[in-house]
């Protein structure tokens, strides 16, 4: 079980209805964490093409999270 701060941006903020939330979860990686939070916020949809940052650094979905991390979930960008 870890404790992290989660921040949602753009379409994700509108899907979850919150800008930031403290989360306690049994999540080893950002990928785990997103999947767990999708149960709480079903409007999130899949994380295809989404990006994640940890403590203001772009991160891999499979890195190991630590207590106190801030996890930023970025919906897919416009691309055009």
């Amino acid at each position: 079980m870890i404790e992290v701060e989660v921040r949602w941006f753009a379409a994700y903020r509108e899907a979850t209805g919150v800008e930031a939330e403290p989360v306690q979860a049994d999540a080893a990686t950002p990928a785990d964490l997103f999947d767990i939070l999708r149960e709480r916020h079903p409007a999130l949809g899949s994380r295809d093409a989404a990006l994640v940052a940890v403590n203001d650094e772009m991160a891999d979905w499979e890195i190991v999270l630590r207590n106190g991390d801030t996890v930023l979930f970025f919906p897919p960008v416009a691309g055009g």
Partner: protein
Amino acid sequence: MAESLLFRISESPIDVDSVRSSLADDRCGAYAQFEGWVRNVNEGRAVERLEYEAYTPLAEREGLKILEEAQARFGITRALCIHRSGLLELGDCAVIVGVTSGHRDAAFQGCRYIIDQAKVRLPIWKKEHYADGASEWINLRT
């Protein structure tokens, strides 16, 4: 030279003339500039205005990385990119890229690389507000 590359998110309108003049350089024979403008239609829907949301700390850091990559790959001399955040009206400049180099090949290639990478790698999101009152986050990658 650190000052030869600059990436910024701007909440206020972009001063296009000053972008170009800040890049003036007697060593350079070529200058390429790209701008993205807010257009009045997207995929058939009449657009009234746009909203950009950026996560500035990371966008500026990752944006600078893109400029550094362009310099390493193409040997450009200087590069500047400014991307808007906030509300934009039709015709407004949403993003500008300016690149100088000795010759035009590098200037074109560097400019193209920067805008292409900026569009897919930066934490910047676009919301379109339509003439019919609806609005939508735009996401071309899914």
